[in-house]
């Protein structure tokens, strides 16, 4: 016990705070990615393997728009629209035919799509990573670090997008449609809600949100065709830990896991810190498989 306390006290407070901030920033992006994923699963039982690729393509679109116009907000909006459209097309062509069949087929199909999208990106954009300029430069001093303002902007924007999305779900007519369809798609149809259209809309929305996450994240790293792979894995973990279909749960889980990983990075190499999320998943599946943080939608 003593050793543990001594151990914890040895961690410099400033490092702790820095890692907390980092954890929250990554957590917010992860939350944005995961909310699209959990929404799609909750409403139509589709595990969208291609979500990471939508994130990646969103980042590419963002880079292109940013480089062409220098306008970050335009990049966000165009990326959202383009990828949402792509999502709608994917859903109509490949997922609609599978409605009514074993949901495991959707994993296979979305896996196939992820391969196609990834290789398309590699072929079309080439293997060299692209850089996306940061919309706001400048740092502030956080203890001994020059901490970029942009990172805080990411967190704020992600929170704003998620907040906006939540408001949409709660108060708009289509939000009610989505929530009704998620709860009982048969009765939703019987009440006149055009459920196939809602499915397409939700998939497109989820795709668009993944795209925006990609744009937000892009200035932090290089944009290349593999950037989606790690995110899709983390996003799945978040969705399962948060409770599949639970928006609130995913958000909490995203921040929770990101914080844990961030703290773990104090001691281990970041590429190994990812094991933390794996462990959390295993523990969740062992003890509370419906999700640690599941809340009703």
């Amino acid at each position, binding site marked *: 016990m003593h050793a543990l306390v001594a151990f914890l006290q040895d961690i410099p407070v400033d490092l702790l705070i820095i890692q907390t901030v980092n954890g929250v920033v990554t957590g917010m992006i992860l939350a944005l990615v995961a909310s699209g994923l959990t929404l799609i699963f909750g409403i139509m039982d589709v595990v969208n393997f291609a979500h990471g690729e939508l994130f990646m393509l969103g980042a590419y679109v963002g880079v292109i728009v940013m480089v062409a116009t220098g306008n970050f907000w335009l990049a966000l909006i165009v990326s959202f629209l383009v990828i949402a459209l792509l999502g709608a097309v994917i859903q109509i062509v490949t997922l609609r035919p599978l409605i009514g069949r074993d949901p495991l087929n959707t994993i296979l199909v979305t896996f196939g799509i992820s391969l196609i999208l990834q290789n398309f990106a590699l072929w079309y954009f080439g293997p060299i990573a692209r850089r996306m300029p940061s919309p706001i430069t400048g740092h502030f001093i956080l203890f001994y670090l020059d901490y970029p303002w942009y990172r805080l902007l990411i967190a704020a924007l992600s929170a704003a997008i998620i907040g906006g999305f939540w408001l949409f779900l709660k108060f708009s*007519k289509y939000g*009610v*449609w989505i*929530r*009704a369809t998620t*709860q*009982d798609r*048969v*009765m*939703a*149809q*019987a*009440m*006149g*809600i*055009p*459920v*196939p259209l809602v499915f397409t809309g939700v998939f497109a929305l989820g795709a668009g949100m993944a795209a925006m996450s990609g744009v937000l994240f892009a200035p932090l790293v290089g944009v290349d065709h593999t950037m989606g792979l790690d995110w899709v894995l983390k996003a799945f973990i978040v969705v399962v830990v948060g409770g599949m279909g639970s928006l609130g749960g995913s958000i909490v889980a995203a921040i929770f896991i990101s914080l844990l990983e961030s703290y773990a990075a104090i001691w281990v190499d970041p590429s190994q810190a990812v094991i933390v999320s794996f462990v959390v998943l295993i523990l969740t599946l062992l003890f509370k498989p419906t999700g640690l943080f599941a809340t*009703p*939608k």
Partner: protein
Amino acid sequence: MSEAPTSTQPLISVEGLHTYYGKSHILDGVTLHVGAGEVVGLLGRNGVGKSTTLKTIMGLVHASAGKVLLEGKDIAGVPSHKLAHRGIAYVPEDRRIFRLLTVMENLRVGLDRDGVSDARKNELLDKVFAFFPRLGERRHQAGGTLSGGEQQMLAISRAMMLEPKIILLDEPTEGLMPSMVTQIREIIDALHREGVAILLVEQNVPLTLASSQRIYIMEKGIVRHQCAASELDVNHAVIKQYLGV
């Protein structure tokens, strides 16, 4: 709320309907019809296919053979959400209201249709809350927090929001207290006065006989008997034959 029929053709006509569930043959050639503004009762023991008949009319179950006609037009393959807009409303057994949506949101689902003015929407809401004051009191409560009887009221109100020509009503009194059963009777009568047709599936024989104009009795997936409701009473031999224990 529907106009007087322009022809003598029935509102809903079901002819020779067959459905399967896996290998089980559920509906074995069901034929019945409901005229505009009529209340028609569908009786029968558990498991004979009454609910399945309603679901097939609503497009929720696929028919492998036979026809369903709405005002003379074949509606096979028309998706349920379109049928809801064409005048068929469905109130399932166990109500199935949206538990996590509020009462108002449940109603809005049916209310927010194209071509309905805001004034009309308010009229409909007022009407429903006049019928069911308790719903009005609880309008911002989540559906799942309502009692069984209140949920039934909500389920019927939700259907009324669609301004339907016919309501498919599946065992509305199941699990309700006698006082609520009376209220259901009153609602059916009120709807009938407004010209809404009802296809009523029920286990409660007296209620059905009292509120319907005609009766069908089903057994093992097929209609065995049909007549005017006035020809039957609880002790009738036919009732005993098909419904007696």
